[in-house]
């Protein structure tokens, strides 16, 4: 089976403006959403407690809310259904520091009389831990961007690296715009998803860049736009197929992974789609706008080869001289 006509070169850049506007609009809507609506941060970041309770029958949510009012610890608590009507999650910004009697034990005592239940999970994070995580998460993200910038510059050129970084930021901002819009919990797994999307996005972009580089090196084509159109067209089949397979598995994770995985599977689901879009329509396009010159690149390559040849000549002269 073949999905794409092998010889056809699609004019992706011809419609560059449309995609640029689309990306631009999405990007700024996302920034606005993140700035105004923000995220519903999980306790990993804010500190607090999450208690997951499973009842033998339907969970009496109103009764639970009523009972929780008894304790100050649950003053700002929220109770919501989790996965099924039997299960609820109680979230509160409070946490306790004592070992022998903690907020989980309190919950158990308070809920006595609301029905037959089992406490299945207690996650409690002190306020300090959350701060540390925020700093660590952010520095991990920035470090990864730096590392990518360095490797792509080393293997390709700084303009490629810059374009790749812009594409990554584009993907991540839009993905998390969706996360904000749908009010999905932002927790430690979301940070993992963020870094995964980052890795996935750069992966796709590099596959396209590899083709661009190959065309520059192996053809005499001088028109950069044409080179990029060809590279994107040639890799399109691969980009789409891989994205499809990844999308399949992320979708199964989203559907079957349960609410506990939502902080990971939802951003992944959106990120895969956006990442695919950007590697086809945005990343390569951006290189054109950074003012990349094919002639200059070829000149640099030729110089490199020359210097290499010169070095080797000197080495062989030196070696023969010694011998």
């Amino acid at each position: 089976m073949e999905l794409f006509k092998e010889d056809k070169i699609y004019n992706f850049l011809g419609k560059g403006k449309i995609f640029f506007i689309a990306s631009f609009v999405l990007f700024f809507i996302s920034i606005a959403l993140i700035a105004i609506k923000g995220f519903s941060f999980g306790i990993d970041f804010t500190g607090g407690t999450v208690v997951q309770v499973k009842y033998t029958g339907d969970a009496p949510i109103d009764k639970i809310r009523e009972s929780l009012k008894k304790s100050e610890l649950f003053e700002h608590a929220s109770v919501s259904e989790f996965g099924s009507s039997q299960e609820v999650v109680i979230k509160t910004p409070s946490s306790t520091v004592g070992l022998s009697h903690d907020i989980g034990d309190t919950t158990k005592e308070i809920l006595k009389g609301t029905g037959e239940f089992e406490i299945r999970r207690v996650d409690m994070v002190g306020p300090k831990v959350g701060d540390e995580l925020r700093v660590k998460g952010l520095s991990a993200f920035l470090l990864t961007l730096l590392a990518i910038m360095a490797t792509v510059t080393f293997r390709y050129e700084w303009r490629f690296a810059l374009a790749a970084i812009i594409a990554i930021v584009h993907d991540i901002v839009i993905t998390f715009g969706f996360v904000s819009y749908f009010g999905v919990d932002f927790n430690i797994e979301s940070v993992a998803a963020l870094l995964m999307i980052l890795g996935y996005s750069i992966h796709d972009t590099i596959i396209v860049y590899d083709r661009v580089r190959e065309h520059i090196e192996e053809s005499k084509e001088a028109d950069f736009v044409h080179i990029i159109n060809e590279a994107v067209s040639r890799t399109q089949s691969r980009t789409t197929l891989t994205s499809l397979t990844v999308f399949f598995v992320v979708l199964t994770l989203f559907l079957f992974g349960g609410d506990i995985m939502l902080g990971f599977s939802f951003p992944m689901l959106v990120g895969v789609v956006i990442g695919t879009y950007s590697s086809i329509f945005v990343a390569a396009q951006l290189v054109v706008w950074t003012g990349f010159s094919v002639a200059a690149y070829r000149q640099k390559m030729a110089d490199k080869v020359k210097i290499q040849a010169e070095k080797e000549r000197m080495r062989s002269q030196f070696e023969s001289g010694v011998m």
Partner: protein
Amino acid sequence: MKLNFRLVIFAFLIAFGLFFSAPSLLQLESGKKVTLGLDLQGGLHMLLGVKTDEAIKARIKSIAASVKNFSEKKDIIIDSFSFNEDSVSITFLDKDEVKNVKNFISEIKGSVVAVDGAKISISLTKEEILRSQEQAISQAIETIRNRLDQFGLAEPVVARQGENQILVELAGIKTADEEQRARELISRAAKLELMAVDEDRAARVNSMSESDASSYGDVILEDANNPQIKHLVREIPILDGSMLTDAHVGFDQNNRPLISFTLNAEGAGIFGDFTGRSVGKRLAVVLDGKVYSAPVINERIGGGSGQISGHYTVVEAKDLAIALRSGSLLVPIYVMEKRSVGPSLGADSIRASLLALVSGFALVIVFMMFYYGLAGVIANIAVVVNLFIILGVISLLGATLTLPGMAGIVLHIGLAVDANIIINERIREGLRAGIPTSRAISEGYKKAMRAILDSNITQILACTILYVYGTGAIKGFAVTLSLGILASILTAIVSTYGIYQFFMSRIEKDKNYTLWFGMSKRKGA
């Protein structure tokens, strides 16, 4: 069809993957198995903080106590003590005696003395503060480990994390009650003290304030069974738990549980002397600042053993005995983070992620076969072997498989076929251009390799950063994903190439690209 070195490597990879993943997959008795994370098997994970400030306070207090001791011996009269966060000021009645005391203090290691008239201020050097904190943490870790080892759970993890945090992981905790018991055991100070009751003033205890008591060198302690009852005891204990050699559960004549303890020789000596001197007076048995009993001493007690009676259940008595045996916790600890997962939720999580794994896997396999024909089958073989290798390496390393780790494996299946897709697309391109089959394949591999390496190296870089910066569960995710990437490079680049080489003569002979590479039939082909 001929054997080649790539195929040999592939066979080796298969054997490796099967051999090391078999114990986990088939639940064999022997061999290393994948350790499931607490989120999958259920258990308690806690990050504990150590109040190291308390260690410094205790150090200051003990220096103050020895100064007091020294002064009493030399008949130097102390006017007052004043304790601050990390220092103590002692004012003496006679200014001339201060020099003597100063000389005595300078001999105490790690102390800094400042004299101002009749007042002496004592604080600690930076090194001494660090040393005290360090000691407090390692002592806490040691004590918690000792207690948990005796609690009877399989392989408790007690490890230092960061500067002054302790990670405690207990797998296999089944019920909330058991969890609470474990937490109580860990946090219990278990500081046993035998203290003399101040018989001269004991009758006035209810009208006395804390500072009144301390001016007599006494402290007021609550009764463990009835907080309304107060006891007045001498501040400096006769003995403490550090001289304890054993503690176990026994029963009194009414068959109520009590704890019998035995003292070492030094303790037994002090205890014998004291009881000999104090017949007719009371001795308070104090645990964690509460008086458990205060029996009257009838005669000199030799042999160095005693009992702590109180209103506790057998289980409580047992845990208390463990805590006493394993030594007291010198500084208080507190919870910074706690995650406890019930075993039933863990089982649900395993089921959910396995369902995602299997269905995602099935979708990918069918899709690849449909799209690439036999090349898709070859890619699928690579992906299956890939999974075995990941599982095998995780078992071999003894790494822990967490829920995010499972997600990493699921995700990896989607990505693992990518290398194969890149290669197959390249081969198809070559074939379409009319290049001879064997050259199309070898060039396809060569060209695909550069792109695959470039992008996978960047990905592994991202994983490394994820590993360094991540906490427990995220680390697991980073490990499984990097393992996956490495395994997919090996299987896709080396192994599948070997399979093509093996079948090369046949592919060249039938030239059936639809069968082999899933390409559409075209005119003239």
